């Protein structure tokens, strides 16, 4: 498999705290990679560095053959990345459908003048319904986000990220806060998206689901690489068990 995303020598500091130190991560085309590690390991910081939300002290980031290290967030997204948030962040003034339709219209808002002269939203609404169906929340399409439960909003995050038609979907704890039944269903949904050819990088603490759906694991601990490889083999490594499970 070819490498689609390569993050090398990633070092991030927040004031005097080193969040990531010389971290390396590669993602292969079409794989389902789970990024795991204890709280404070630097998982979210790594994803935020890849998308440009966090500015690193040092990092070399490549998406395909393109160096994206110095690009602003919106340009990295346009090259094929999408990110969902650990704590859901829907657009509160929009309905569920509008949230996804806005993301689906990413080509229409690329440039200022075309965005001003374009009115029609019907194609994007149609596409949005398809994405909502994919994550099984189409029945909530006309509802305001403030009235919906976390399970629906977590799925909305996924649908909205899919709507920007990414090559790589970066999911930050999509199962957090969900009960085991909801978590299992959403993990299945994400797996089915992966099977359709979208490369997935998922941060998750729910280890049973992680082991069930992932092709490969990448483990961080205390801002450093700890291990990476096939899920069961990684989980059998004593240092991973010690750092992550405390056993």
């Amino acid at each position, binding site marked *: 498999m070819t490498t689609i995303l390569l993050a090398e020598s990633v070092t991030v500091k927040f004031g005097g705290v080193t969040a990531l130190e010389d971290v390396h991560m590669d993602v292969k085309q079409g794989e389902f990679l789970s990024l795991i590690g204890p709280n404070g390991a630097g998982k979210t910081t790594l994803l935020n560095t890849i*998308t440009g*939300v966090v500015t690193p002290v040092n990092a070399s980031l490549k998406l395909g053959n393109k160096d994206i290290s110095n690009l*602003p*967030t*919106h340009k990295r*997204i*346009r090259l094929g990345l*999408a*990110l969902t*948030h650990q704590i859901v*962040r829907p*657009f*509160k*003034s*929009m309905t569920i459908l*509008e949230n996804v339709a*806005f*993301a689906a*219209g*990413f080509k*229409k*808002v*690329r440039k*200022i003048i*075309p*965005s*001003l*002269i*374009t*009115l029609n*939203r019907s194609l994007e609404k149609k596409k949005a319904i398809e994405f909502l169906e994919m994550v099984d929340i189409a029945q909530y399409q006309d509802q305001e986000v403030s009235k919906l439960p976390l399970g629906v909003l977590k799925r909305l995050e996924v649908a*909205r990220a899919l709507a*920007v038609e990414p090559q790589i979907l970066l999911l930050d704890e999509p199962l957090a806060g969900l009960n085991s039944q909801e978590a299992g269903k959403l993990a299945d949904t994400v797996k089915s998206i992966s099977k359709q050819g979208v490369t997935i990088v998922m941060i998750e603490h729910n280890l049973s689901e992680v082991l069930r759906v992932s092709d490969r694991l990448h483990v961080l601990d205390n801002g450093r690489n700890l291990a990476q490889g096939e899920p069961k083999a990684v989980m059998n490594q004593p240092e991973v068990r010690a750092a992550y499970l405390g056993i």
Partner: protein
Amino acid sequence: MGLYEISLATGVGIYIILAVSLNMITGYCGQISLGHAAFYGIGAYTVALLSKIGWPIYLTLGAGFLAAGIIGTIVGLTSLRVREDFLAIVTMGVAFLFVGIVRQQEFLGGEMGISGIPSHGMSKLAYLGLVLFFAVLSILFSWYVKRSWMGFAFDAVADDEDTAKVLGLDVKAYKLTAFAMGTAMAGLAGGLYAYYTRFIIPDTFGFIESITILSMVAVGGIGSIFGVVFATILLVLMPEFFRFINDYKLLLYGVLLFSVMRFAPEGLSGFFKLLVRRKDG
């Protein structure tokens, strides 16, 4: 229509352009501005100076529109670095800076302002027609923007600009566009005001005027075009019809602003929607 009514309606028309223009920045794009009157002033001073050297009205108004829009875009650059309360303070600074600079410039008339601005060359009724034409144009443009994909992008920026970024939106470009369009429209209002009064002084475009415009937007309902227009008409006419209010105008605007923020953050527009919902429900 008597001269008094024509004059009153002209003032209402100018304020509608101003309120709609601030609504573009604060209501649509979520960027708070407490210095909007400065751009109103830039338009007025540009038109006053150029008309005195003989430029025709269509060129002076265009120049006022452009001058305010260009300086507004430069001020808008600050919105790329600071947000919310900090942006409010920066734009408040712009309001004070404008008056402070104008007061010290001899060629701008200093404290005494600029008098003897040439006439627009029309009857007062025809001029009212021109002002109302621009007011309606501003409303229609604003209404159109809201329905376009640009309006959709403004909604996203106003809601959560970090999320808008991770959906691929060039948030900086949209913020600057909102500032450019809103401040240019304020410049046009300023130009129309200069021809309307033919005498301008720096204090007309001070911080209190910025708060007055913001009151119109907040009372109408931030982001609601028709609510803002309705509130503007109400707030401009009220002190005229009830003369005693005129003495307490600032107090009234302050109380209204406070009451709206505390009890009805969505303004008259939100109140109207609530009534309709109750009627339907």
